[in-house]
């Protein structure tokens, strides 16, 4: 019997959730609501992809939403004071990369554990943003910039979802088709063996944190443009959600495994659930409870099928 992979199970769950919601939630399939979800998904999806790549190496990035906020705030300041748009975006991306390289440097060269490093940089970046903005939000962008998060391509597809799709494909290609990608997985499963295989671990790690920061910057562009403002807590609620979605998507929290498609399924599940439950008028705190329950259910299911399969293999060999 051919058994289903983690990702296929998740795909079926996704499909099930979508079908369920379109049956029970009024107005779920309305065009307006579908657009609504397509606009809500990209920023969260991008942050989750960034988080996933880092988790594959066995790390975690608690500073990711603050990297996004810092780069968003810098972009917002420049854009609202009339700096040439592409230049402002470029500077924003560079700021995020600088943050990423700080994380990467401390994790890879000094060797402090990622959870501690990024906890520290999270507070650091938050402080930097606060001292720049004094806590106020920065707004007032030209209409052209607002199109990034709110515009449609050819009047049909939201631009932001295309950007998300492009980066999802890019991430999949980088992870699966390049030497770096394979090294990321190797490093995640066994750093010592990877080092002795002649891989420059710290260089691989550095690039991982840079890539995470790049995705955070793209998410920041979409968020600032969509919300027409940037602030210290921009997207801060995505922080733990992105860890949860990455893990729900099948990424091993100890590292070594994780697929883009699984992550996308997980992001869609989160999106469809929160939107559907909102349409049903379920209390917000109950929505969080249901999300938590589903997360635990799927993780248990994954764990159970995993051990079951292992046992079968052992039995088969004997």
């Amino acid at each position, binding site marked *: 019997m051919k058994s289903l992979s983690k990702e296929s199970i998740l795909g079926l769950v996704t499909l099930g959730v979508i079908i369920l919601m379109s049956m029970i939630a009024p107005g779920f399939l309305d065009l307006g609501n579908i657009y*609504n979800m397509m606009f809500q998904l990209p920023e969260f999806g991008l942050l989750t992809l960034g988080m996933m790549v880092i988790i594959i190496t066995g790390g975690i990035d608690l500073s990711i939403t603050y990297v996004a906020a810092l780069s968003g705030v810098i972009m917002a300041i420049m854009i609202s004071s009339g700096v040439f748009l592409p230049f402002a975006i470029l500077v924003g991306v560079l700021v995020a990369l600088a943050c990423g390289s700080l994380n990467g440097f401390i994790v890879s060269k000094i060797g402090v554990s990622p959870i501690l490093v990024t906890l520290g940089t999270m507070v650091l970046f938050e402080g930097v943003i606060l001292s720049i903005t004094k806590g106020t939000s920065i707004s007032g962008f030209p209409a052209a910039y607002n199109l990034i998060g709110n515009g449609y391509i050819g009047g049909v597809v939201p631009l932001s979802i295309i950007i998300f799709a492009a980066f999802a494909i890019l991430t999949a290609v980088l992870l699966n088709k390049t030497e770096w990608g394979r090294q990321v997985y190797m490093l995640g499963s066994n750093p010592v063996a990877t080092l002795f295989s002649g891989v420059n671990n710290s260089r691989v790690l550095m690039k991982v944190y840079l890539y995470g920061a790049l995705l955070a910057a793209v998410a920041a562009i979409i*968020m600032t443009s*969509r*919300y027409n403002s940037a602030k210290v807590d921009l997207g*801060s609620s995505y922080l733990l959600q992105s860890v949860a979605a990455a893990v729900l998507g099948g990424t091993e929290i100890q590292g070594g495994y994780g697929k883009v498609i699984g992550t996308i399924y997980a992001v869609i599940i989160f999106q469809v659930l929160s939107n559907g439950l*909102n*349409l049903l008028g379920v209390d*917000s705190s109950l929505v969080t409870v249901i999300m938590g329950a589903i997360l635990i259910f799927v993780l248990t299911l994954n764990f159970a099928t995993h051990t079951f399969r292992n046992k079968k293999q052992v039995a088969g060999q004997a």
Partner: protein
Amino acid sequence: MKKPFYLFVASLVAILVLAGCVSDQNVSSSDSEGENNESGEDEKLTIAVVPKLVGIPYFNASEQGAIDAGEELGVEVIYKGPTEADAAQQVKVIEDLISQDVDVIAVAPNDPASLTPVLKKAKEEGIHVMDWDTPADKEVVELSVHQIDDEQYGRHVTDLLVENMGKEEGKIGLLTGGLSAANLNAWIEGAKMQAKEEYPGLEFVIDKIATDEKQQVAYQKTLNLIKSYPELEGIMAFSTPAPLGAAQAVQEQGMQDDISVVGTALPTDSKPFLDDGSLDVATLWEPDKLGFLTVYLAKQLAEGNEIEDGMEVPNIGEVEVWDDNKTVIMGPPTDFTKENAGDYDF
């Protein structure tokens, strides 16, 4: 590593090319609007009230008021907010409410600027838009419900502090919920103005101290403040958790008679501190009334009724309406002291 680099550049170029044909309208937006207007004509009005976040006593009390108003006035009230005070989450809640095709959305913004696009979208869909508790973008909302006149309220807090210190001079400290909260800043401005104009002997030992809307942080910061300025005689604390944290610190240090604490807190939370004098007086509007007033005015708005200065609102009394015909002020605050704090259930 060369191949992915080219791929990256290629995708960037593709994005730039596609960007040329981006517009802010989707082809189908015109016909979906038609549908929205048809439905809901003969049904009950649906009024959505969006707080900054759910699950804190203040917004639970206003929820109760909003729901009571719904029952009394025969409208359906949806009270829904983010579980974290994050602007992004709040925008999502509003977007989902637009999909639900409600008649009025009344929102208490976490970050006013971030709501402007989504509120505009709501208006395009024919939904009435108003704010409550904290003002949103003036240009977008049709009605703005304020619990209080911000400046007067700030001045009132200073008066209370002076009254409780028993003298018009001395060193005082000031705690706030967050540096960016517009309403807190407006109150602080009022409080400082009053101190400057009426009580020049009052000296703020340090600039406002942020407490992240957390009692624990307010407690820590107050301990530091007392340690750094032993001659401190008064503390004014803005945002509902801050006075509690400050009072907790004063209580622990046994300095109830040395330091007067006044602030903006809910009566049930404050009661233990009011009882032993660590908190001298708390002052706030009644959030359940604010929820009630919001729903009442939302109904007026949806039915196209005029709102005028001095109009009588059931359960609330007379409200003040400013000349812009948009801003409604609920009335003066209520002071909660040792004697009356037990009479309230929020």
